[in-house]
């Protein structure tokens, strides 16, 4: 990788100031996407601001009807959190399906969301659970946050501080893992809220994570897998590559959606 200046702030304010004062910055969270990208010289920031020493960015707590997770909280911490397991077990299950045990010891929820990889797991949870992403400047609804592959609403130098997940009535995540990379070839997160059902798909979309309104409406009327009969995923929005073509991905969306609904219904 190319050389860079390294910064190690210990507060959000210090990190934000560094970002404002420096040219060509990247924030370093768990580093499990950014560092490989820098090794390949696909990214070459002049300044790397390491968020790893900022204690206020870590932690998990229940706050009223929501679970609030600090941006630098690691996947393993979410997977093993008794608080998350009790309130939103689907979210803990999702975290446990990311990468492998060693990756989960480094990778962070904030890093995953900021990167918005089209095959990442957390974006689907954020959309389906109607999460709110808090930054050092504002609060952003998940529906406004994800704006296409590797693209988010984050401005230059804006730092995700925490993610707030409203606790649903029930939810589940069904993932068809790529057998080598463990990324989602297709992943479907479904959540039943008092106001209706939200269903989000990752891995499949050519424009990143997305919701399927027709499935949500059918499931809001009756939360059983059979409600999805006759509803197919939109083919024109599907990604197509050597791992799976658009038709196969669209088929998998239907299969994973049914599995997610069945799992959520089982509790």
């Amino acid at each position, binding site marked *: *990788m*190319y*050389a*860079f*200046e*390294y910064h*190690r702030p210990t507060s959000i304010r210090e990190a934000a100031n560094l970002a404002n004062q420096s040219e060509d910055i990247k924030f*370093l969270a768990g*580093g*499990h996407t950014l*560092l*490989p990208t*820098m*090794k390949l010289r696909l990214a070459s920031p002049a300044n*790397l601001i*390491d968020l*790893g*020493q900022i204690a206020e960015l870590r932690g998990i707590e229940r706050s009223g009807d929501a679970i609030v997770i600090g941006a630098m909280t690691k996947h*393993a911490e979410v997977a093993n959190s008794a608080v998350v397991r009790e309130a939103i077990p689907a979210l803990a299950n999702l975290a446990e399906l990311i*990468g*492998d*045990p*060693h*990756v989960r*010891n*480094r990778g962070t929820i904030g890093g995953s969301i900021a990167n918005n990889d089209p095959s990442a797991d957390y974006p689907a949870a954020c959309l389906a659970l109607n999460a709110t992403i808090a930054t050092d400047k504002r609060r952003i609804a998940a529906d406004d946050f994800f704006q296409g592959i590797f693209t988010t609403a984050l401005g230059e130098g804006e730092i995700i501080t925490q993610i707030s997940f409203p606790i649903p009535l029930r939810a589940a995540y069904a993932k068809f893992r790529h057998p080598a990379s*463990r990324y989602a070839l297709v992943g479907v997160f479904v959540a039943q809220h008092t106001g209706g059902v939200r269903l989000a798909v990752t891995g499949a979309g050519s424009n990143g994570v997305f919701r399927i309104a027709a499935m949500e409406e059918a499931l809001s009327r009756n939360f059983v897998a059979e409600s999805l009969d006759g509803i197919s995923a939109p083919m024109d929005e599907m990604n197509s590559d050597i791992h799976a073509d658009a038709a196969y991905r669209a088929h998998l969306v239907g299969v994973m959606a049914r599995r997610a609904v069945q799992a959520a219904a089982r509790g």
Partner: protein
Amino acid sequence: MTTVSLTVNGQSVTSDVDPRTLLVQFLRENLRLTGTHVGCDTSQCGACIVHLNGQAVKACTVLAVQAHASAITTIEGIAQGGELHPMQAAFREHHGLQCGYCTPGMIMSAIDIVSRKGNALDEQTIRAELEGNLCRCTGYHNIVKAIAAGAQAMAQAPLQQAAE
């Protein structure tokens, strides 16, 4: 250059490093601890696994400067007074290796599995937990046997476990 201070296998180390130095590079090239291997260099194969504050991580995807103020244990740091760690002994006893390239990572991963999942490990658990470690020789069969036996042996060696 950035100053990094950390503990490696119980010894304090302070060094000025180019910030882009990977932790695995720092261990191998600065400290000459060449037991930690570089296999894929893309956080897939697990040959570079070390313990960072007691957790197994892939040292090819951590910067040395990120390990500032932390405690690292490498494969060189687990034997006690010339006695193999019970997990190392189990790998030898059960022939859990052929070429040996993946072995340091396998053993560091295995000790981490025991610390999280306990000493009575079934085959299914071991195989699932090893998904971040690749071996191109053995077919994993004897590695799985070695880890099950090593986990049992660790229960009978409380002093060594405490040291780790």
